[in-house]
């Protein structure tokens, strides 16, 4: 009981030191569980959604699947369920912007079930449509309203029975949009019975439920069963809506795992230094406690409990507050991009593990700092500790010239004498600089992608999306009217030595408004012959110029083999590109999907579904990068906080250790400013070392984060000189600010008191 009182009073006396132990263990756990709660919440929400709706394991796309085909696939070993579905691209006729609405006609979906949000649940017995909730929301549609769709010029109207979310559309956008604009696309479920045709459903898709994970073998067996009459087989791992969301989660996860480690490492160093100092200061007290008759165990318990309680309170508070606060910062911008029925942070057992680990590590560190107590006799403990010997270390040999000044000598020896303290300062500054470089670099790199995508590559002012049903006369007229260039874009499947991958194929008809950039971002011309493949895809497939690649657009059943004639680099859409001439030489029809023009085109054209000004596309991009900016600001905030806490803590530590020495210098006649300069020197040396090491660490961190951005996204590490300057400058400002915080303390050093005796 008395010892508990002693602990509480000790803590009150050494407030700041103990606050920093608490703060560091709090921050470490807070960030870990905060960002962790965010990504884990996303993962959990998605997993629940996928499970609840029985998300398909694989998809088959083709020109038409009969019930016989479905049956053949069903017979394959390991395939538990197959559902045919008809997918039609219809136009929402009642809306000015004529959005494309994917009509999904199905009997009784058990795979990728639409989840009811408002109105009735999907029922194949009723007539009507169930439309996507986000689209309904964007258009202000309610259950009970009617929806008019047109397909190949024929319009039909259905009542909206309810709104739904499909697990296949977690991440999805209209074909012209880089970022989802829910005004521009939607999907609607229609019971097969409502279709004005009789007989078998002319399915264009087969949804598969399977336990098999060997997708290559599975596809071979399916190809066999169907006699090759299908276009594309997609396992979940290549289903874009799925992979994109998983990549996003992975990215958040990567960030959430690295940063807390820095905080935890520093928390432990803080504890080590604080407790070592505390035990040294309380040496006589400890001797007294021993002399009174406390057992070593009790005393050790007493001191270890300091670290235990503080880190316990910090870790608990972090575990509680992290998931409550940080996810809220991310979810608004994330939900603008992804569609999930529920958004919420989740608690993972991992978080409690991290909290327990923090407390254990803190307690163990405290134990290590106090272990010395176990050794030695009571009488020894009652005597002041012998001063630590000073020897000429390697540091001195390296750094000290014979004529070095007092300032240099004093600092070099002081640092080599207090290695842990110096190391901690370097680690603290290093982490700060690294986080800043990483944060600013991330901002620069993402901005660079914007320049790259919208200035270097896309040079058009307006992009016109061609309707699927548009006639070639309509397209030609529109092209003539806006002085446009035609481009055909389609998802493509590629195959190299049995390894498959998908991407986007662009077939260009003498296009000048799309620029090419090579692997090192220099301007390049696309060759007229053969295909060009994007850098990231080439790396993924491990192919080079001159290699053969097989490809087919979605909807084509035959593979075409082509030679890679160039490699180009592009940030967002990985795939292949080729000229119209080459495409037609392979025996295919060129059908433009978009027209590009340098003019600010406006108005409506027959056969054109939508018009996109480049500024709209850029605005969409900016919206998408919002969540990234939040991460950047968080990083900057925590980096500065980290450095402040660490350096302030070290300052205190330094000050209490060196008070006597500083008093001596003052008595001898050094002015307060001079002494502050002395401390500033060391501060700046260690800061500079930390900064020097922090810059490459920051770049490495950034590279690691960019690597987690996923297969479809290619980003270059770009860090502007300004960003380096900011990072270094901000770090130095923190360092000097902390130094200034101590100038008052130096002025008030008690010359009389600290010189009297050895305490």
């Amino acid at each position, binding site marked *: 009981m008395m010892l508990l009182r002693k602990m509480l009073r000790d803590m009150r006396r050494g407030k700041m030191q103990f606050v920093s132990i608490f703060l560091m263990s709090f921050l470490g756990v807070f960030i870990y569980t905060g960002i962790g709660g965010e990504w884990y919440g996303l993962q959990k929400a998605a997993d629940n959604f996928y499970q609840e709706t029985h998300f398909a394991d694989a998809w088959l796309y083709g020109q038409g699947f009969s019930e016989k085909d479905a049956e053949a696939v069903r017979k394959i070993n390991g395939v538990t369920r197959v559902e045919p579905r008809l997918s039609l691209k219809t136009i929402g006729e009642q809306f000015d912007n004529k959005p494309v609405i994917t009509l999904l006609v199905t009997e009784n979906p058990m795979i990728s079930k639409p989840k009811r949000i408002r109105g009735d649940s999907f029922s194949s017995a009723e007539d009507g449509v169930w439309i996507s909730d986000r689209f309904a929301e964007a258009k202000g549609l309610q259950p009970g309203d009617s929806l008019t769709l047109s397909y190949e010029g024929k319009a039909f109207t259905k009542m909206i029975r309810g709104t739904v979310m499909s697990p296949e559309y977690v991440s999805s956008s209209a074909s012209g949009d880089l970022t989802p604009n829910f005004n521009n696309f939607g999907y609607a479920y229609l019971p097969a019975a409502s279709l004005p045709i009789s007989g078998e459903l002319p399915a264009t898709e087969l949804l598969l439920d399977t336990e098999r994970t060997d997708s290559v073998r599975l596809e071979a067996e399916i190809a066999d069963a169907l006699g090759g009459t299908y276009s594309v087989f997609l396992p979940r791992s290549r289903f874009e809506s799925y992979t994109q969301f998983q990549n996003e989660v992975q990215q958040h996860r990567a960030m959430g795992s690295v940063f807390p480690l820095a905080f935890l490492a520093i928390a432990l160093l803080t504890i080590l230094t604080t407790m070592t100092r505390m035990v040294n200061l309380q040496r006589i007290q400890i001797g007294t406690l021993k002399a009174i008759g406390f057992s070593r165990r009790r005393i050790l318990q007493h001191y270890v409990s300091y670290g235990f309680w503080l880190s316990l309170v910090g870790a608990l508070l972090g575990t509680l507050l992290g998931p409550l606060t940080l996810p809220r910062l991310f979810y608004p911008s994330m939900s603008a991009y992804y569609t999930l029925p529920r958004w919420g942070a989740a608690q993972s057992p991992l978080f409690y593990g991290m909290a327990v680990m923090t407390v254990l590590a803190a307690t163990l560190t405290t134990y290590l700092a106090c272990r010395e107590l176990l050794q030695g006799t009571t009488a020894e403990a009652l005597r002041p500790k012998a001063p630590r010997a000073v020897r000429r270390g390697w540091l001195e040999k390296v750094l000290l010239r014979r004529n070095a000044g*007092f300032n240099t000598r004093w600092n070099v020896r002081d640092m080599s004498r207090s290695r842990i303290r110096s190391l901690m300062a370097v680690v603290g500054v290093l982490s700060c600089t690294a986080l800043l470089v990483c944060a600013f670099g991330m901002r620069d790199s993402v901005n660079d992608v914007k320049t790259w995508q919208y200035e270097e590559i896309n040079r058009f002012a307006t992009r016109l999306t061609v309707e699927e049903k548009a006639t070639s006369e309509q397209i030609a007229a529109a092209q003539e009217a806006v002085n446009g260039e035609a481009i055909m874009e389609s998802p493509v499947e590629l195959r190299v030595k049995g390894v498959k991958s998908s991407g986007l194929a662009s077939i260009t008809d003498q296009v000048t408004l799309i620029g090419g950039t090579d692997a090192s971002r220099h301007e390049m011309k696309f060759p007229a012959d053969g295909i060009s493949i994007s850098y990231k895809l080439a790396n993924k497939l491990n192919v080079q110029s001159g290699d053969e690649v097989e490809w087919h657009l979605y909807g084509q059943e035959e593979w075409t083999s082509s030679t890679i004639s160039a490699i180009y680099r592009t940030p967002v859409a990985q795939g292949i590109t080729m000229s119209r001439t080459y495409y037609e030489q392979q025996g295919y029809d060129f059908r433009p999907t978009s027209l590009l023009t340098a003019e600010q085109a406006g108005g409506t054209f027959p056969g054109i579904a939508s018009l996109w000004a480049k500024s709209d596309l850029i605005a969409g991009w900016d919206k998408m990068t919002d969540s990234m900016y939040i991460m950047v600001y968080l990083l900057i905030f925590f980096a500065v906080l980290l450095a402040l806490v660490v350096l302030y803590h070290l300052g205190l530590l330094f000050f209490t250790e060196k008070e006597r020495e500083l008093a001596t210098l003052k008595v001898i*006649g050094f002015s307060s400013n001079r002494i502050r300069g002395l401390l500033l020197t060391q501060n700046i040396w260690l800061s500079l070392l930390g900064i020097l090491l922090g810059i490459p660490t920051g770049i490495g961190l950034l590279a690691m984060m960019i690597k987690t951005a996923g297969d479809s996204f290619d980003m270059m590490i770009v860090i502007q000189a300004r960003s380096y300057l900011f990072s270094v400058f901000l770090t130095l400002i923190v360092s000097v600010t902390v130094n200034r915080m101590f100038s008052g303390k130096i002025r008030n050093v008690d010359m009389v008191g600290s010189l009297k005796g050895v305490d």
Partner: protein
Amino acid sequence: MKPIIEFVHVVKEYGVGEGVFRALDDVSFVIQEGEFVVILGPSGAGKSTVLNLLGGMDRASSGEIRIKDQNIAGYSEQQLTEYRAKNVGFVFQFYNLIPTLTAWENVALTKEISGESLDADEVLASVGLAPHRNQFPSQLSGGEQQRVAIARAICKNPAMLLCDEPTGALDSETGTAILTLLQKLSREEGKTVIIVTHNSSLAKAADKVISIRNGKVHSVEIHEEPLAVSEVRE
């Protein structure tokens, strides 16, 4: 001989809780240049306060402290720093050497703050420590450390040496040697040396003994022919 230090009606009060504690109550005395002075008194008598005021580490509540005709009682913090740097050499009970500097460096440290400082090697030799110049304080014995401290104090060529219980942490033999050194500095080099102690055995070796009791000057003794330190300490 002319007075180097004059305390004129010096009062020093400390606030203690709500009350006031008067540590020095109207203290006046004079110390001449080159004198070997002992300020004597039991613990708590106020002798350390005298030393603190003399050393420019603290300010008097009232009265004048004239050092070479300058009243330092009215000095600013900056003036006091300069005063300490130029005029006062301190020797403490626990040496207070900078642990990270060698013996020579501790002495040469004074060059950093006083332009008139002496050659560190010569000063070290004069206290008999030339062979130990490159050792760190932790490698020296207590007596050797105190010699370094004395060397550091005299190296900047101050007007006075202020010594606070300089032998308090040393064994008797070493203590005698240190005091002999201090007395020699006064006699042969004309330094003003002021030793603050509670040990009256040194009194007979001093030119002047100022006894402080309960914050007041109890008596001032002047010895025309003081004994050698070795004669009074056995």
